[in-house]
């Protein structure tokens, strides 16, 4: 296997490009904007790209090709990935594997999504296509995603004494980080009271503990070591990416931990010879505060059941043990489904290169991204990836 590096990373600001909140843009325009930013950041010509990989959840077929064609990238192998909220990191893993295995030398990885008005298919059509008869729990719950994360919060509170204040503090932290990120959808701090007093969605999760609906795109240029050294003195190495899928009864009768997160992170740590104590920053899949909470424990950033205490003590804040979600995470930066997994690596690449301005994690050398998505078999996510990055 060959080493794989990120030499350029770029993204659009996340938000609603519906012509009301932000200027109207299509998913293809957003994707192209992110690609151009990543290619310019790398200082590499678009003509050098040998293959393109795109994660997406809302576009009609061939999203990747339609993003790259207007910026002069066509006639090369192009691959589109759907894997729920983990689509972007699964596209990254596919691209990473092709370079590691010697298939290509330079590739473009894109994540793009538009949920405010997906092109080609109205959101209503899409919503109606999903609810009935496909997934039993979805039919029973009527609000499966949010309710499941609320049930996870309830189980964790019941088993470990975690409090609703501790959960809410995760949102306060991530929104504080997001306020320093010009690419974030929400760039405003919130107080603990505001989080707790916002509208209850599914007890104990209030509105400000749920990620927003978002549009946006992110892209990275990945390549071999030889090529990386031609373009930058600060290549970001991706030593390993693991992917795991939730399995039936994989939770072994407990909703307070995700065994698939544990499997994916253990494999990644072992493959890289890196432990959780080596991490300077982590971008987790905080679509809800409860998912960030269980991620602390499942990624072994803290002992099982102690996520609440670590939050109280500020150990995942700037200046703490390890900064979690310095970008603001999904809660503040936003969550355009297919873009999220790539955007996590954009943030980590910028952090490791020391380019994050006010939210820079001082001296960051090792980062980890955790991206999970969808529903597979049972209650665990259909896909979860753990990506390690070093400089």
């Amino acid at each position, binding site marked *: 296997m060959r080493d794989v590096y990120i030499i350029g990373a770029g993204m659009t600001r996340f938000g609603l490009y519906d012509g009301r909140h932000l200027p109207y843009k299509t998913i293809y325009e957003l994707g192209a904007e992110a690609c151009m930013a990543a290619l310019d950041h790398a200082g590499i010509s678009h003509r050098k790209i040998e293959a393109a990989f795109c994660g997406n959840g809302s576009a009609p077929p061939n999203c990747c090709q339609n993003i790259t064609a207007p910026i002069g990238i066509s006639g090369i192998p192009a691959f589109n990935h759907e894997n729920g909220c983990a689509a972007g990191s699964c596209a990254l893993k596919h691209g990473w594997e092709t370079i590691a295995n010697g298939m290509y030398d330079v590739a473009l990885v894109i994540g793009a999504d538009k949920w405010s008005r997906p092109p080609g298919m109205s959101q209503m059509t899409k*919503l*109606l296509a999903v*609810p*009935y008869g496909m997934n*039993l*729990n979805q*039919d*029973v*719950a*009527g*609000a499966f995603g*949010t*309710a499941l994360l*609320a*049930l*996870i*919060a*309830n*189980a964790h509170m*019941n088993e470990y004494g975690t409090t609703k204040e501790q959960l809410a503090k995760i949102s306060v932290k991530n929104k504080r980080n997001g306020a320093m990120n010009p690419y974030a959808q929400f760039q405003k701090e919130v107080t603990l009271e505001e989080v707790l007093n916002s*509208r*209850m*969605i*599914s*007890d*104990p*999760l209030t509105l400000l503990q749920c990620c927003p609906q978002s549009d946006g795109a992110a892209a990275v240029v990945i390549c071999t070591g030889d090529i990386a050294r031609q373009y930058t003195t600060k290549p970001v190495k991706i030593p390993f990416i693991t992917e795991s899928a939730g*399995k*039936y*009864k994989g*939770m*072994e*009768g407990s*909703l307070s931990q995700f065994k698939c997160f544990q499997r994916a992170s253990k494999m990644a740590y072992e493959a890289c010879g890196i432990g959780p104590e080596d991490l300077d920053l982590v971008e987790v899949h905080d679509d809800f505060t409860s998912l960030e909470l269980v991620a602390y424990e499942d990624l072994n950033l803290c002992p099982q059941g102690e996520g609440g205490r670590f939050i109280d003590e500020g150990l995942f804040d700037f200046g703490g043990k390890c900064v979690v979600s310095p970008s603001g995470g999904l809660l503040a930066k936003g969550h355009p489904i297919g873009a999220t997994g790539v955007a996590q690596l954009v943030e980590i690449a910028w952090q490791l290169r020391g380019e994050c301005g006010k939210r820079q994690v001082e001296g960051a050398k090792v980062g980890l991204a955790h991206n999970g998505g969808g529903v597979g*078999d*049972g*209650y665990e996510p259909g896909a979860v990836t753990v990506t390690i990055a070093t400089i």
Partner: protein
Amino acid sequence: MDKITKNIQLEEDQMLLREGIINFPSSPGEKPQLIAGQCEACGDIAFPKKIWCGKCDGKVMKDILLSNRGKLYAYTVVRQAVPGYEVPNILGVVKVPEDDELLIMAQIRECDLKDVFNGMEVETIITELYTDFLRNKKVIGYAFKPVTVN
């Protein structure tokens, strides 16, 4: 294997949540029960039942009836759902005695929002779960309610 009554007389404006997952009572004294699948080779129990086993090479799954009673393992009050569902409603995860790893998601009915708690004894009931507004039918399925001591 107990007899499994897979048919229920539905009204014109009703439809079943799924075929073959509920044993409807055939006499007033009987209680409704969920139908799970059990692998003939390894004995693993799955709800909803699988076609082939997820734990061993087994390809033969037989129907079994789950206990009518279980314990509420976790719950939430859903205050926002897709159209067709009444909110607020209590959504829970129930454990039954047959298998501690089995987590059954279900609405908890006939329970005041302030009376629900982890570990509460619950029993299976048949009820209208939601309105399928594409077909304009009321969907009949399973839920649980608190066990009341008389």
